[in-house]
């Protein structure tokens, strides 16, 4: 079963063709980073306009690279939410029309469910159940994944998402946007132990990164004449605080659920230090780690096609009246 996946929830226009929820025939991601760069983050209306320009060529390219004709596609999966409403609407309306015109089954997919499905696009995917940490610019949540459509929310951030903390600290340090990659690179030259920033340890599996961001801000304020020279140490110390908390909670969640498998997904999963830390901590207690390739950590449509394949296979269909959503209640 060959599924066309479409994703436009934030600042990437993406389309992909995936066979049977696991084999990527093509995956095209058109990034808008350059457009949003001057604003230090995504600007919703600009994102929508760019999606409008890019959706047709991106889908065409995904089909062409897959070597398939539209007639070979068996179904369509598209991100329904959460995300920016104006951005979501572009992909969602396009998918609705594209599928309806061809009388194909189509289904709306939750973006977070999509991220978790990125591990099924890698060889040797985890059997159920497993524990997954989804960390990105807009989300930081832990799930107990019991099936393709059964993901139990164990906890999540109460304030800032992990990726957002990276963006904000990068902005404070004058390093630019997006913050994740820049902080990761800058931190390579720094000493992660020289400046110790606080780790917020909320009860259960919730996270908080707002206090950490404030602590970095306070450090800059308290050392106005010095901080510019210690940027690598600040970046490394900050990154270490985020990595410590994410690693700890993910391992604790696996232990709570007696899972011997865990997954790390979302844009922040591309962070080399986090991959290393989770890998090492898990190996120590004999837990297997599944982390998708870096190209599948950020937003992409292959993960949406993979999640959609399982929904469509289970007989789920969306109706023409279906609408996108900005935020979802925790599940």
């Amino acid at each position, binding site marked *: 079963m060959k599924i066309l996946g479409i994703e436009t929830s*934030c600042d990437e226009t993406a389309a992909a063709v995936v066979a049977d929820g696991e084999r990527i025939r093509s995956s095209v991601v058109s990034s808008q980073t350059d457009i949003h760069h001057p*604003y*230090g*983050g*995504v*600007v*919703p*209306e*600009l994102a929508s306009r760019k999606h409008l320009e890019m959706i047709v060529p991106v889908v065409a390219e995904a089909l062409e690279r897959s070597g398939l004709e539209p007639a070979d596609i068996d179904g369509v999966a598209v991100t329904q939410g959460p*995300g*920016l*409403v*104006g951005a979501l609407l572009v992909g969602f309306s396009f998918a609705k029309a594209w599928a309806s015109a061809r009388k194909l089954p189509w289904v709306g997919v939750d973006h977070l469910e999509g991220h978790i499905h990125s591990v099924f696009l890698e060889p040797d995917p985890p059997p159920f159940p497993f524990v997954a940490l989804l960390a990105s*610019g*807009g989300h930081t949540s832990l799930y107990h994944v019991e099936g393709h459509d059964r993901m139990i929310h164990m906890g*999540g*951030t*109460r*304030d*800032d*998402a992990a*990726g*957002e903390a990276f*963006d*904000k600290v990068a*902005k404070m340090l004058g390093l630019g946007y997006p913050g994740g990659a820049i902080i990761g690179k800058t931190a390579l030259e720094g000493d992660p132990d020289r400046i110790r920033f606080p780790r917020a340890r909320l009860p259960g599996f919730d996270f908080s990164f*707002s*206090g950490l*961001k*404030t602590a970095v*801000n*306070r450090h800059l304020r308290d050392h106005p004449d010095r901080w510019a020279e210690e940027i690598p140490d600040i970046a490394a110390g900050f990154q270490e605080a985020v990595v410590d908390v994410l690693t700890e909670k993910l391992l604790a969640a696996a232990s709570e659920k007696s899972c011997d498998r865990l997954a790390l997904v979302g844009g922040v999963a591309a962070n080399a230090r986090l991959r290393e830390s989770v890998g090492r901590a898990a190996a120590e207690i004999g837990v297997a780690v599944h982390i998708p390739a870096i190209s599948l950590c950020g937003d992409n449509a292959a993960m949406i096609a993979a999640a959609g394949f399982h929904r469509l296979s289970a007989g789920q269909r969306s109706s023409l009246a279906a609408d996108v959503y*900005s*935020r979802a*209640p*925790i599940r």
Partner: protein
Amino acid sequence: MATRVGLITRSPEATRALGAAMGRRIDSPAVVALTGDLGSGKTCLVQGLAEGLEVPPEFYITSPSYTLINEYPGRFPLYHIDLYRLDGVDDTADIGLDDALRGDGVAAIEWPDRLPDGLIADRIEVRISGDAGDETWRRIEITAQGQVRLMDYLNGLSEEERR
């Protein structure tokens, strides 16, 4: 009745409770402009506001810095807006602000100084000051012209809470 009330909260929980008390007394669409440094407790107050506006507790009210605007269902729709990362807003339509400000809900705006002067004439101003490193006190000053129930309530708070 004073249109400006100043008070002190002694913990993040108290700031949140003040937000909830305010939210319960907002009975028409409104703009709440929140000013205060990073870490002063703006999002904390909005979490309370959401509670008072009856946003279901299954929604975590998290930072909107990434998306700029988060929207929640409640007694009125709550638009939580954070303009921190913008240096200035020239075109409010560009960031989707026009939708949030069209007057069907409560728009809670952090870093409203990024907006063009005079864009929102009628608003509930909330100014939070304190030391980010010391959570035991925040001075919160609230100014509003309309919103009679809200200002009645704030004016009725004890001398102990008001400063």
